[in-house]
Each structure stands twice: as structure tokens, then as C-alpha cells.
């Protein structure tokens, strides 16, 4: 089992390596101007340079922090909101429509308003990140609640379980696969929005690095940032997978 997992991971990395080779080839053949698309070799060199002489590490940590806090806030608020709406007719009638109105608002247009209301603070940035990252979780939770096997709700009713107990013991665990998939999505959304916020609201982080590199037409530096984002995405997804494996062990038992 364990050895197989490692082998699969290696194979998966080989596939990614193949794609990187294709990228190198595209760069070598100059399919796109090297000013905009550097080869992986140059991007890697820029990455190493960024870590050794620049403050890329600091920027990375900044972005990771924004992502983590924003995502946590989005997860907690998203699950709570989704659970409320999913389990209450009242919330569905009064609150859900307003949310549907907020959902399509682009973060880049929200930021000026958020700045006006909350100031140019970290709190504002986290609010904006959470605002953008909350939707996959909210929708997935609402759906998960709606898709619970009706027989289980009947079991809960016949046990006269309290509403909180029904949510905590029946609906949430049953919706967990949906919620985790939503959280997985919103994790990357949070990462992307951290970068966007750093670009638009001038916070310190990879977003600034990417922005300044793009502005200065230093594409190798820009791709160094992109590589870091990719690596972050991959590592967080491994963490997500581990959590999923633990929490959804019963699902694998069913197979």
C-alpha cells in the first residue's frame, strides 16, 4: 500500500516533469517571446537568485499567511453559513438570495469598497480573501445538506435529536465529502486571492513580487513566483488529501 502510493507519486511527478520538458522545448523554440515566457531553466535560476539574494522567502511566507488565515476564515464561516442555510427554511428564504447577489462580485472591484470601509489593513485583506473563497464551501455545504439520505433524517427525527445534533451528527458528516471538495477548491481560490489582494491592495507577499516583476518585464522572476505558487498549491493539496483520507476512511471501506 505504502510503496504503491510512493510509486504513484513518483509516476505523477514524472508526468509533471514531462510537461516541464515540453515547456522548455517551447521556450527553446521561441514559440512565445522569451520576454514573456522564459524557459524553466531561467525561471529556476531566478527562483534560486530570489531566495539567495532577494527576499522571496519573506514574500512567500507573507502569501502563505494571507492564504491560511483567509482560508480558515472562509472555511469556518462557509460551513456555518452553508449549514444554516441548508438546514433552515427561514435562512433559505431571507438570506440565501442576498448571497447569490454577492457571489458574482469580482474581488478586484470589491477591494476599493472594502478599503473605504475597512481601511488599508490586513483585516481588510483577509476579509476580501475570505469573501472570495467562501463560495465553493457555502455551495458545497448547502448541497451536501440537501443530499443527505432522507432515511437518516427520519432516524434522527425518531431519536428526537436536537437541531444542533442533527447538523453535527447526521448532516455534516454526510455532507463531508462535498464540504472537503469545496474546501479543496477554496484553498486555491484563497491562494489566488492572496496574490490578487497583494497586487491590488499593496500588501507584502508573492503578489507584489509577481506584480513588480511583471511591471519590470522580468519574466523569469515572474515565473519564479508562479513556480512557488504551483509548489504551494501542490503541497497544500497533499495535506488536503491526507485529511480527506483520514476523515473519509469509511468511504474507502465501502469500495
Amino acid at each position, binding site marked *: 500500500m505504502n510503496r504503491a502510493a510512493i510509486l504513484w507519486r513518483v509516476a505523477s511527478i514524472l508526468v509533471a516533469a514531462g510537461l516541464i520538458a515540453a515547456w522548455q522545448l517551447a521556450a527553446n523554440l521561441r514559440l512565445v517571446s522569451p520576454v514573456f515566457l522564459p524557459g524553466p531553466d531561467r525561471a529556476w535560476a531566478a527562483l534560486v537568485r530570489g531566495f539567495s539574494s532577494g527576499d522571496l522567502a519573506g514574500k512567500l511566507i507573507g502569501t502563505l499567511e494571507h492564504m491560511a488565515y483567509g482560508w480558515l476564515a472562509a472555511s469556518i464561516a462557509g460551513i456555518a453559513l452553508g449549514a444554516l442555510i441548508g438546514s433552515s427554511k427561514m435562512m433559505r428564504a431571507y438570506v440565501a438570495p442576498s448571497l447569490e447577489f454577492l457571489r458574482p462580485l469580482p474581488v478586484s472591484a470589491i477591494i476599493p469598497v472594502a478599503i473605504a470601509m475597512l481601511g488599508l489593513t490586513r483585516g481588510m485583506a483577509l476579509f476580501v480573501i475570505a469573501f472570495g473563497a467562501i463560495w465553493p464551501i457555502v455551495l458545497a455545504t448547502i448541497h451536501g445538506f440537501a443530499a443527505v*439520505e432522507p*432515511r*437518516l433524517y*427520519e*432516524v434522527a*427525527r*425518531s*431519536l*428526537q*435529536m436536537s437541531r444542533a*445534533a442533527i447538523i453535527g*451528527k*447526521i448532516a455534516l*458528516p*454526510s455532507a*463531508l465529502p462535498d464540504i472537503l471538495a469545496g474546501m479543496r477548491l477554496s484553498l486555491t481560490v484563497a491562494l489566488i486571492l492572496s496574490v490578487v489582494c497583494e497586487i491590488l491592495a499593496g500588501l507584502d507577499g508573492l503578489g507584489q513580487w509577481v506584480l513588480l516583476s511583471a511591471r519590470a518585464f522580468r519574466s523569469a522572476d515572474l515565473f519564479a513566483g508562479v513556480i512557488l505558487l504551483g509548489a504551494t498549491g501542490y503541497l497544500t493539496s497533499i495535506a488536503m488529501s491526507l485529511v480527506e483520507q483520514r476523515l*473519509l476512511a*469509511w*468511504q474507502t*471501506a*465501502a469500495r
Partner: protein
Amino acid sequence: MSIVAMLDEARAARRQKTLIAFNAATLRLGGKTIIENLDLEVRPGEFLCIVGASGCGKTTALRLAAGLYRPTSGAVTFDGEPITEPRREVAIVFQDYGKALLPWRTAAGNISLALEASRVPARERGARIEALLRKVGLPGHADKYPSEMSGGMQQRLQIARCLAQEPTTLLMDEPFGALDAMTRQGLQDEVLSLTHASQTTVIFVTHDLDEAIYLGDRVVGLLPHPGRIGIELDVDLPRPRDQLATREHPEFLRLRRQLFDFIKATEH
């Protein structure tokens, strides 16, 4: 004696006599009348069995008694009050056992759910779960997920969860349908002795006529399209029942034949 007091007394007397009552209960679902004008009274402590052809409305009647459906007209009352919601002292064993278990909880966890609902402290649960699992013949399977259990094991697990509820009334929908003869007989006797000891009221749906007669104080046969009562037999067999003696009792055989003829007649 005032009139009010007299009425009160009369009500108390009636209450003594019936726990669950169907009064001209009718249920329409999806444009069809599933149950029509059902009149049925279940006395406290009684063991009532319901039989009938497949699709005649046994499950539906049970769900009415459980409060999972509300009658379209007429009434279903528990202890004199209309049933609007399931009650904690009433436990239900569902026919589709596979769907009524929490797939993300182990066998122990599924039983624990009922204990949690009645606020049994955590440290007492372990022992009670173990006792219940033993009672239904599943000792040592506490850590299995439902998906790792056989059909019969899942069915027994559901029964264990209902017993954990310590109900005063048990509604059982073909609870032994997936069990082999021996396991089934064991559980029949288990249920009989449990309910007898605690004076539990039981409505028991089954398609096994022998089982209905063996267990019941009374057997009701439903007619289909729409569901209504077609036959009602009092079972005058001595208690405690015995798997060999009871089943050979002439009264048993007589009742069996009577029911058999009834069911046969209802078949199209």
C-alpha cells in the same frame, strides 16, 4: 361527580385501553390513496403483527404510527394525542436497513447515536453498546463499518440501535427479513422476552405468517389498493412461546391456515 370529572375518568379508562389508535386514517401520496379509512387500536403492552401482500401498505401504516407521515384525513393518536412528530419513546426499525445506518460510523458508533440522543454519559456507553451487540449476535463486530457487514448483520445492527433507545413502543418493519432461520428464531425469542419484561408495545410488520402468529397477541392482515384491514385474528397461544411447542400447537396451525387463505385470496 361533576361532568368534567366523569369525562376525565372516561378518558383515563380509554387511555388505559389504547395506546396507538388509527381513526378512519386515510393517506394519499402522489395522487393515490395508499391507506383508506384505517381503524385500528393498539393496547399498551400489546404485540400486534401486520401481514399482507407486497405493496399493500404495511410500511405506510407503520410510518403513520411513527409520525413520519401525517394522515390526509382521519387521525392517528398516541396516548390520546394526535401524532405529529416521532417520539423518543417510540423506536422504529426501518425495512431498508442499509439506508438507515450512518455509513461513516462503525457498528459501535451507530448504536452510540441512540445513546447520545438520550444523553447517556460517555463512560457508560461502551458497556451498553457491547451488551447490545451481544444481544443481537454481533459481539466482536463493534469496529466494523456498515459497508463491511453482511446484510443480516446490518439488519441486526439497526435492531440493536433501536433497543438502545429503550423504547416503550417498538415499530418494526420486517426486521428479520434478511436473517437465516436460526438467527431469526434467536432474535424472535430475544425480542419477545425483552418486550414482555418491560411491557413494551410492539407493532411488527412481517411477510412471514408463522412469525406473525408466533410473536403476536393479535395479527392484522391488510388488503391492498388501498390499504385497509381485511382480517383480524386474536392469537390465543400460551406464553411464553416456544419455538417447537408453539409452532406445533393446533391453534397455531389453525391460525396459520386461516391467514394463508386470506393472503392467497388477496393475490390477484
